[in-house]
């Protein structure tokens, strides 16, 4: 069974990856940048999938990481004239430290208090971001010029959509690969054990608190990277990136794609972003109503999401 699974997954992933490298060259500029968005949102949902799908903890405040990642890459570039790589480094340090401390503080809470705390923290962060106009630009935000990507002897400008695309694709692929590998290591599997049955994991000798903290930190950094990529893509960020609507999006994207499947985190936005654009153009009045209905239908009727359902289909046939 194990080898069977590995059998179809790897070539499938590689196939999709090669498509992602080649096909966008033939798409119109609009679809190029839509793909960029899908990749970024996929990464954001991946962060949520790590903590929720793999660790079993519901972090209902992922917008904190999204906003933090965005601002920690924007502010160094805007105020200290840093290059993209340096800013990204700062962002990773900031997000890691923050997620570590945050995770450490709340990992000892049992599930419901955990959720509650994440909700409260995200509301507070939104409030802080809105109340500090000089730093965050509050509601109307900050625009900035994204410097070119410096590789030493040559540099690539982000004005070129394909440069942006490959940059985002590269980062998403690397992160995805690292996370994928991580959950195959014994440590990663221990985290999954926490999801399955925390008490039993504890009895087996695992320090579940440590496992939760590590998972939380990983989740925070991944979502933070997504936030940073989004800001680099738009050349803009506002306090609105801390708004709970972003949390909702990461949740419904992951759930529609398939919780706990990693790829599902990308499939979700892949499908829904099209839908969202289509519907909001066709009827902006009904857009949120339809998304609300979809959310409810998916969670009740198809909680495994798209990838989860397909996987179940395969396993049934395999038998």
């Amino acid at each position, binding site marked *: 069974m194990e080898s069977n699974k590995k059998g179809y997954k790897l070539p499938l992933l590689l196939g999709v990856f090669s498509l992602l490298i080649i096909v966008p060259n033939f798409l119109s500029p609009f679809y190029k940048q839509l793909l960029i968005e899908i990749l970024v949102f996929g990464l954001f949902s991946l962060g949520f999938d790590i903590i929720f799908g793999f660790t079993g903890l519901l972090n209902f405040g992922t917008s904190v990481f999204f906003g933090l990642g965005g601002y920690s890459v924007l502010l160094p570039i805007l105020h200290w004239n840093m290059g993209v790589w340096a800013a990204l480094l700062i962002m990773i340090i900031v997000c890691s430290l923050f997620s570590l401390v945050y995770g450490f503080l709340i990992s000892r809470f049992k599930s419901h208090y955990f*959720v509650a705390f994440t909700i409260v923290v995200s509301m*507070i962060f939104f409030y*802080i971001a809105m109340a500090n106009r000089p730093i965050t630009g509050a509601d109307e935000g900050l625009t900035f010029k994204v410097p070119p990507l410096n590789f030493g002897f040559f540099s690539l400008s982000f004005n070129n959509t394909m440069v942006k695309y490959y940059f985002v694709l590269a980062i998403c692929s690397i992160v995805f690969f690292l996370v994928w590998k991580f959950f195959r290591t014994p440590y990663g599997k221990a985290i999954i054990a926490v999801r399955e049955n925390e008490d039993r994991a504890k009895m087996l000798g695992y320090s579940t608190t440590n496992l939760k903290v590590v998972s939380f930190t990983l989740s925070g950094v991944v979502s933070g990277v997504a936030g940073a990529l989004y800001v680099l893509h738009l050349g803009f960020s506002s306090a609105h990136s801390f708004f709970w609507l972003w949390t909702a999006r990461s*949740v419904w994207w992951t*759930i529609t794609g398939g919780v706990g499947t990693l790829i599902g985190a990308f499939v979700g936005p892949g499908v829904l972003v099209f839908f969202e654009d289509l519907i909001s153009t066709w009827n902006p009045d009904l857009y949120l109503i339809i998304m*609300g209905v979809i959310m*409810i239908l998916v969670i*009740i009727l198809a909680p495994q999401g798209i990838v989860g359902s397909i996987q179940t289909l395969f396993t049934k046939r395999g038998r």
Partner: protein
Amino acid sequence: MIDAIGLSLVNAAVWACIIAMVSLGLTLIYGQLNIINIAHGAMYAIGAITAFYVADFLGSWTYSLLISPLIMAIIAIIIYISSLRFRIVGYPVAVTLIISYGLMFILEQLTLLIFGGAPRNISNPLPYQIGLFGRTYSVYRIFAAIFSLATIGALLAFLGKTKLGLWIRATNQDHDTASAMGVPVPFVYMLTYVLGSILAALGGALVAPMTSITHNMGHEIVIDAFIVVIVAGFGSIPGTILSALILSLSNGLFSVFINPVLAKGISLAIMVGILYRRPEGIMRY
């Protein structure tokens, strides 16, 4: 200085009562059903908007104290029957949380389509002011606070002294035993959800004449209500009242001395601090 503090504390106390009532609705729903009702803000807005239409068509806002909860009850029953009741028992809290989220979007957008984006106002049903600490203060606000307290009292009486209240408490304690003893548990679940929603709608109807009515006014109250409920300890009624008092009074007190935005931030920080020390809530029951 004394004047400013006095006025601020009175105002804060008024809001504490109202927030306590609204938050109780949230607490009830969570304590009994394990549902984190994110749509609570939308229900508050529906209560206020219904009050507006009542005042507009019937000429007097007072009727809304009866009609808003009634309309909300009908809406809550529809919502509950069509979606939530399928996922009450045995499912992780994430499921009903997400359903609630979806509901929030639907309700808010519907209110925008029906009510429109322009703010409206209800003329003050009690247009009298009393002199207070050097300025004048609206008598209506004091009435709203008293009414909220009365509602809370009525709720406690209902829970403590009536058969339905007994059913609710029994189911809350142990739904299997309650069911075994003949309590119609599914009905109790729906009843609790409706009760919680009514409290939100009543809050909206009460606040409507004090402030303006917009389709998205739920956002104003939902953050405070959530923080109150979470710090109170899920399901704790006395905790909710105490929590509302702490949040509101600390905010009121600080905003006399410093910028109100900062004051709000500090009172939020205090709440987070309390939550951190006592994650199970302020009161242990």
